[in-house]
């Protein structure tokens, strides 16, 4: 039978080329995205930058450890604690490094550091000289030597003289004299040492004996068991080392000695890098999942179509004495022949696209540019195996169908297809649809916040599309009739020929409409979903704000203290600041230390400038010993909860309010728990009785030169709503860009596969006197009708998907107006239409009047 399969393959090559292309591309796409995924996970991080020129760096171990019921639970600290000052004396020759927010007014986000730490990267002077006085600085850019520049630090803005220009390091930096830097930021962030590491460790060992510091064994090591049961690691004897008396800063009692590649852990973008890496792998994972889904969808529908095209051939073989088993084996044989070669080709060539895809993602800001393409063979092997498996699974149904072809069919000129909707197909399609709708309902009711998560939403979208795709033949007839109404009004045979053609072969129409369905539904659902989610998130952020004016920092550094004072000094202004901080709780029945985001707000302003939805209790009760939490904390009113602040200091607070599900924050505390963090926003309302006019201008004047801006609530709300391109939307776009290429090819593929079948029919039309332009019109009309059917089907899938999402979001934020991204969706539809027309017109122009149908 393999021989027959091989011979058939040579003649039936358009069909096989179609499945070959679909499978090879599917395998290639899966292999490429798999390789992207592996790259994003395994790519080595960037080499050390800030401390590239220092052999040994001593840094605080910025983790907090808490004794939990299951041993110790640790979490990275949100707010660094710094090194004990005593260490400096024990390590002579060490360069004391401090890193703190300091930025030229109007300049790019930057950090401030002491000048002696310029050696660590190194960042040598390229012009001018080193700073020698308190009022002198060296910058890496943004100001000329000799110029006066305002520098904004946590304390406020102050003018300095730029005396030198240093080489650009890993990030824009303002260098102060060491003394000035120590005053601006007393915290010691690192000690840079040009000494053998063993010596450093020996010194630290002594320091540990005196209680000044203990050395942890790095990120992965087991920290010494210093924590008293159930308390924070710095709670008791070995507890917080307070530098210079009770009022001094909390410092870390554990240090790490970093050498070699480990020094990169201290780089400014290290955390951001890891986050970017995580983002990239999430997107690659989602894209790979979609690629596999689309490949299964396209490959199985092309196989089903290719087998359907050859019913007569199978019937003939049956009359010649082929058993059903033999037919099935033949179909499997062909599928394997195609699958093995196509999957191998795809798996081999796919990984070549890894580099370009990484670059595409990097250019969209979805992946860090430093990711290097991995070279392992695993994704290719997986793609190959999956490709063959998909082909075999895809052909299983088709083979069963082929085996059921009755021999007598060869003798009938069967123009009418057998029933397309088998009970199995009804069951599968209905089941998938029901599962999709069901899970959407369950999500919307039980976990509205989770339903908007891409990881929850995307599988639902896949189920919806697959379900509608399976049920497509049911809708082809009605949809074609509906769309044909305007066509039928037209004079001539056109309308009749076009609709009759589309409806006579439901299977072909459904198979061709399937890629259109996937393409358009994916585009509309993902983009619409992202727009809807963005709109809801924006509404959740803006809705509770009642203040007329906001003052926001232009960077990540926050509002400096001087600015806040200036704002408070504006006549008639009632100012409330909010500060983003973190709280740590022991969750999972006291086993897991969890970091939760929190907002620190002045309780007086909390109820006037903001209207936070509360489901129980009242925010009016918020004091330094109370807290308002979201329902996800699973706490009751009046319950006392043990917490740790961002710097690791323990505190116990009583729950006074439970926030509504649509609250913009996870918890609210008073500024007493915010530590040294700077406010992320200031809300300003006119004092009762004070004139509102001129307040905006006064705020703008106050914010000038402080890297902050004053906006009205209305302007801010518009800004947030238009902020648009969220990570979710960009991710959806990246996934789409990759998918569209595939589904569009699949659509052209199916149309080209169908072309030989139609050649006879078209020849007959020509014989009946249809002119060439008439024929082309029919062909184009039919192609557009098929695309329209696909669009109609995708509208059903999209409407269902977005309705489900809307139902979930409704509970988070109430009704939210959102812009359907019509333009990209319309673009996708037009693209489908143009390609479909091209794919049918090219073969149809070859039909000659002389081509008598066989």
């Amino acid at each position: 039978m393999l021989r027959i399969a091989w011979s058939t393959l040579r003649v039936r090559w358009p069909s096989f080329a179609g499945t070959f292309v679909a499978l090879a591309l599917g395998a290639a796409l899966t292999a490429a995205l798999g390789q992207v995924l592996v790259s994003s996970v395994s790519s080595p991080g960037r080499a050390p930058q800030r401390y590239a020129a220092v052999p040994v760096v001593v840094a605080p171990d910025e983790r907090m450890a808490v004794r939990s019921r299951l041993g110790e639970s640790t979490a990275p600290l949100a707010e660094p604690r710094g090194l004990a000052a005593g260490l400096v004396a024990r390590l002579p020759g060490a360069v004391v490094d401090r890193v703190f927010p300091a930025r030229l007014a109007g300049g790019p986000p930057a950090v401030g550091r002491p000048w002696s730490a310029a050696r660590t990267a190194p960042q040598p002077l390229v012009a001018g000289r080193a700073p020698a006085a308190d009022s002198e600085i060296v910058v890496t850019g943004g100001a000329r030597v000799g110029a006066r520049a305002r520098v904004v630090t946590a304390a406020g803005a102050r003018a300095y003289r730029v005396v030198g220009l240093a080489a650009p390091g890993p990030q824009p930096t303002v260098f102060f004299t060491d003394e000035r830097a120590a005053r601006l930021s007393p915290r010691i962030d690192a000690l840079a040492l040009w000494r053998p590491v063993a010596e450093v460790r020996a010194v630290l060992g002594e320091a540990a004996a005196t209680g000044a510091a203990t050395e942890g064994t790095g990120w992965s090591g087991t920290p010494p068991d210093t924590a008293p049961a159930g308390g924070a690691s710095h709670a008791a004897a070995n507890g917080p080392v307070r530098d210079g008396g009770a009022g001094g800063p909390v410092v870390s009692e554990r240090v790490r000695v970093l050498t070699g590649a480990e020094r990169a852990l201290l780089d400014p973008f290290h955390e951001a890098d890891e986050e970017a890496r995580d983002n990239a792998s999430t997107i690659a994972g989602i894209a790979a999942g979609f690629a596999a889904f689309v490949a299964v969808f396209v490959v199985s529908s092309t196989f089903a179509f290719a087998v359907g095209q050859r019913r007569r051939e199978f019937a003939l073989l049956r009359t010649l004495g082929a058993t059903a088993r033999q037919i099935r084996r033949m179909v499997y044989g062909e599928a394997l022949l195609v699958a093995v070669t196509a999957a191998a080709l795809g798996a081999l060539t796919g990984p070549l696209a890894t580099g370009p895809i990484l670059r595409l993602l990097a250019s969209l800001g979805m992946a860090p540019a430093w990711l290097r393409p991995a070279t392992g063979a695993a994704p290719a092997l997986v793609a190959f195996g999956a490709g063959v498996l998909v082909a075999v699974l895809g052909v299983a149904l088709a083979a069963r169908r082929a085996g059921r072809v009755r021999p007598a069919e060869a003798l009938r000129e069967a123009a009418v297809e057998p029933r397309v909707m088998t009970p199995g197909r009804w069951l599968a399609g209905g089941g998938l649809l029901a599962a999709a709708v069901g899970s959407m309902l369950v999500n919307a009711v039980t976990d509205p916040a989770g339903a908007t998560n891409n990881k929850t939403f995307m599988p639902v979208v896949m189920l919806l599309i697959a379900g509608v795709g399976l049920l497509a033949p049911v809708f082809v007839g009605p949809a074609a009739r509906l769309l044909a109404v305007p066509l039928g009004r037209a004079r001539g045979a056109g309308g009749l020929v076009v609709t009759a053609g589309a409806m006579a072969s439901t299977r072909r129409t459904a198979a061709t409409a399937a890629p259109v369905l996937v393409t358009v539904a994916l585009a509309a659902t993902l983009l619409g979903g992202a727009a809807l989610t963005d709109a809801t998130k924006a509404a959740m952020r803006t809705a509770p704000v009642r203040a007329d004016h906001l003052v926001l920092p232009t960077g990540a550094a926050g509002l400096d203290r001087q600015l806040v004072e200036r704002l408070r000094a504006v006549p008639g202004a009632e100012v409330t600041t909010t500060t983003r901080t973190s709280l740590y709780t022991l969750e999972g029945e006291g086993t897991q230390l969890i970091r939760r985001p929190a907002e620190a707000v002045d309780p007086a302003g909390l109820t006037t400038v903001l209207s936070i939805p509360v489901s129980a209790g009242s925010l009016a009760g918020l004091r330094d010993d109370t807290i308002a939490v979201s329902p996800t904390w699973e706490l009751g009113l009046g319950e006392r909860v043990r917490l740790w602040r961002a710097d690791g200091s323990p505190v116990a607070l009583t729950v006074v309010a439970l926030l509504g599900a649509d609250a913009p924050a996870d918890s609210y505390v008073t500024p007493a728990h915010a530590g040294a963090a700077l406010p992320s926003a200031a809300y300003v309302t006119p004092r009762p009785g004070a004139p509102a006019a001129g307040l905006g201008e006064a705020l703008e004047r106050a914010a000038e030169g402080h890297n902050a801006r004053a906006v009205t609530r209305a302007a801010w709300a518009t800004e947030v709503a238009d902020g648009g391109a969220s990570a979710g939307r960009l991710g959806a776009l990246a996934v789409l860009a990759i998918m569209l290429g595939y589904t569009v090819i699949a659509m052209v593929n199916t149309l080209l596969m169908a072309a030989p079948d139609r050649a006879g029919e078209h020849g007959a039309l020509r014989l009946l006197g249809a002119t060439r332009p008439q024929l082309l019109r029919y062909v184009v009309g039919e192609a557009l009708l098929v695309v329209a059917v696909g669009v109609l089907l995708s509208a059903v899938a999209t409407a269902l998907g977005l309705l489900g999402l809307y139902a979930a979001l409704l509970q988070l934020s109430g009704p939210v107006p959102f812009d359907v991204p019509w333009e990209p969706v319309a673009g996708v539809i037009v693209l489908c239409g143009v390609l479909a027309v091209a794919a049918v017109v090219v073969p149809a122009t070859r039909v000659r009047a002389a081509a008598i149908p066989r």
Partner: protein
Amino acid sequence: MKPPHVVDLISVTRHYAHGVTALDDVSIGFGAGTFTAVMGPSGSGKSTLLQCAAGLDRPSAGRVVVDGRDLAELGDRRLTLLRRDRIGFVFQSFNLLPSLTAAQNVALPLRLAGRRPDARQVRQSLAAVGLAERAGHRPAEMSGGQQQRVAIARALITRPAVLFADEPTGALDAGTSREVLRLLRDLVDGQAQTVVMVTHDPVAASYADRVVFLADGRIYGELRDPSAEEIATRMLHLEASC
């Protein structure tokens, strides 16, 4: 003594959906080494008769016995095997696989049976239909008459007990039709092959030993060794009476 029947239809009735009765209680036998033509107007049930007799279609009622086996007792697989080994079939539209050469087409039933085709046997079969030198050609490279002769060679390769032919000359011109009919006649005379042929062409039917007339799913008599004129006259009566 009367030779035993190779194919026997006993009270065969075949209904289709929508109340169409293609065969209505038909009983007929085909003796070994005989050449029977089944004639009738369009829709008379002659193709259904052939398909039921060949095991391609199952009767709604009645029995079909081929080569001593009752088809009703055979499952799909056994029926397929019987068809493969004991029944040959020739179609109006030749139905050669376009991707295979003449020799490969002829050998196909043997391959389907899992037997290694004997090259000499294939050559002889092709020689028997006068196409020894066309073995390596594909269907598209041959005339209609040649294609039909390849189809006949294919049908005979398994040495079937009976050869069914459904309008074998329907797609051929007069000259090539004659070649094909001559070939069938020679098979009956020279090798005692049993042939049952459905046709609506009186000239084609005149090559048969016996012509059976069918109308409305019933048998309306038969003629022995008739001339084409006799058959044509009978057909005219039949069509007028319908």
